[in-house]
């Protein structure tokens, strides 16, 4: 009986986290399209609901009522599993995101490693979808994305090491608290820029959306998907983008901390600060999508391996030497 009550308590907490995440994913899709339209001097979705806010929900309804087509030559089990994997991985990572010092679902010791692991598993949704479709364009898209995501993960990992050197703990709350005096975006600014660009590549956002480059690959790994399964890929992608924004906010922008510990700022609760920082980063994501043209594939790989990886490795050495020389290494 006691076990059951713990179970219900946890389920309640999980729902309390997941439902807002899913709703904000829907809102964020709207925001993305609005920003995109704004840059191109269009209106964007503005008909359904106030300011067109309910557009995504209308779209989702349309997707739900459409027929799911499974190609006869596809590998059916893996074909169906792929969007489920994408969606699940995008959602389970939110378990470790701290919204304030106490409001965190799982305050585990290796929180940042968990986030990194889950985001590195994200590639499987795409590979499975691309391979199981048994069709040329999806397969090419899947191969491209596998190479791209694996390459950019390496530099994200090294950037995380930079932050960890300054914190001395893998716990996400410790990372946030270590930024009480100075957000890491100031001393590690080059790393923040590289993290942001790698996050674009990791989530297959423009200008790195080569896996689904519609001009050359139709829609990449999503070509054979329809109806609700396509919608799941789509929502999972946006949930992943929000997650990378949350990761950036926690690693570099001080998570739930307020910018200044003085009167008007302290009135705003911690979770709201985190949400604002995530939105700020997402706005940057949306602007980049509207402004920057798509990269060529060899340039993308060159950027990942020959520019970002050496740069972030050198920065690790610099950070470590600086901390060691001035005796600032965190000791617990």
């Amino acid at each position, binding site marked *: 009986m006691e*076990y059951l009550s713990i179970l219900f308590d946890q389920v309640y907490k999980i729902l309390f986290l997941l439902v807002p995440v899913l709703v904000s994913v829907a809102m964020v899709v709207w925001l993305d399209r609005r920003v995109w339209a704004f840059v191109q001097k269009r209106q964007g979705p503005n008909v359904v609901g106030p300011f067109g806010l309910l557009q995504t929900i209308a779209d989702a309804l349309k997707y739900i009522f459409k027929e799911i087509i499974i190609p006869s030559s596809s590998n059916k089990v893996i074909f169906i599993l792929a969007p489920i994997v994408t969606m699940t991985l995008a959602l389970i990572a939110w378990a470790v995101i701290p919204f304030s010092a106490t409001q965190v679902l799982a305050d585990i010791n290796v929180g940042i*490693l968990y986030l990194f692991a889950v985001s*590195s598993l994200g590639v499987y949704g795409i*590979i499975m979808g691309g*391979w199981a479709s048994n069709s040329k364009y999806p397969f090419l898209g899947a191969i491209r994305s596998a190479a791209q995501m*694996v390459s950019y993960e390496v530099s994200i990992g090294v950037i995380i090491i930079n932050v960890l050197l300054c914190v001395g703990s*893998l716990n996400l709350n410790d990372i946030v608290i270590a930024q009480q005096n100075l957000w890491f975006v100031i001393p590690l600014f080059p790393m923040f820029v590289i993290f942001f660009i790698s996050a674009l590549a990791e989530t297959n956002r423009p200008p790195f959306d080569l896996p689904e480059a519609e001009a050359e690959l139709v829609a990449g790994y999503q070509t054979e998907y329809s109806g609700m399964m396509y919608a799941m890929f789509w929502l999972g992608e946006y949930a992943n983008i929000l997650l990378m924004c949350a990761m950036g906010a926690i690693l570099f922008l001080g998570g739930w901390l307020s910018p200044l510990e003085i009167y008007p700022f302290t009135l705003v609760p911690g979770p709201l600060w985190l949400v604002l920082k995530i939105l700020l980063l997402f706005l940057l994501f949306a602007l980049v999508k509207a402004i920057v043209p798509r990269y060529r594939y060899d340039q993308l790989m060159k950027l990942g391996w020959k520019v970002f990886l050496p740069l972030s490795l050198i920065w690790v050495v610099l950070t470590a030497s600086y901390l060691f020389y001035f005796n600032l290494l965190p000791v617990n």
Partner: protein
Amino acid sequence: MIAHSIFFYTFSIIAIVSAIMVTASKNTVHSVFFLILDFISISCLFIMIGAEFLGMIMLIVYVGAVAVLFLFVVMMLNVAQQKNQWFSSEESSKHIPVGLIISTLIFVELIIVVGGWKYKPDLFDINNSIEINNVSNTHSLGQVLYTDYIHIFQISGMILLVAMIGAIVLTFRKRVGVKTQSYIKQISRERSDGVSVVKVESNKGVRIDD
């Protein structure tokens, strides 16, 4: 405690069944997917015994990187077709004894290692272990790797580096006649390099490339 054992048996059953399926499934891509499932359930078992760092590293390294490359290779090669040719031909029977010898050798080695295994005498002394476990296991792993056994750790790093360089040297080939883009060349190009004013005599024309 009951919940703990339920989770333990679930994960271990998944691990064993998927390990069997890696070798039993006919489709090679399915084998790799079962291998991934196996890795994931093993890392869950690691986390359950409190080795959360090892579990996460297992996920990141094996599932996030190594298995992706496996999948990459297996999807690109037409393994299924090759396997069918393999089994229908006479050649396969020659290789079976070699495979059997190698696998028995590895099996015997494994038995020797497991048989000679000795636990640290104070491992089961709970009072002792609590004192050590004051630090989190990430910290204690770092302590062991980077402080107690730093030289061995560095040597193993060197060996891996040599393996990496070796792989690059073996597969590297310089291709001639390929036009690669060079940013420095493009940026440092001046007007004087590209454009020149030529006085053309009538009825003579101009040679463009010389």
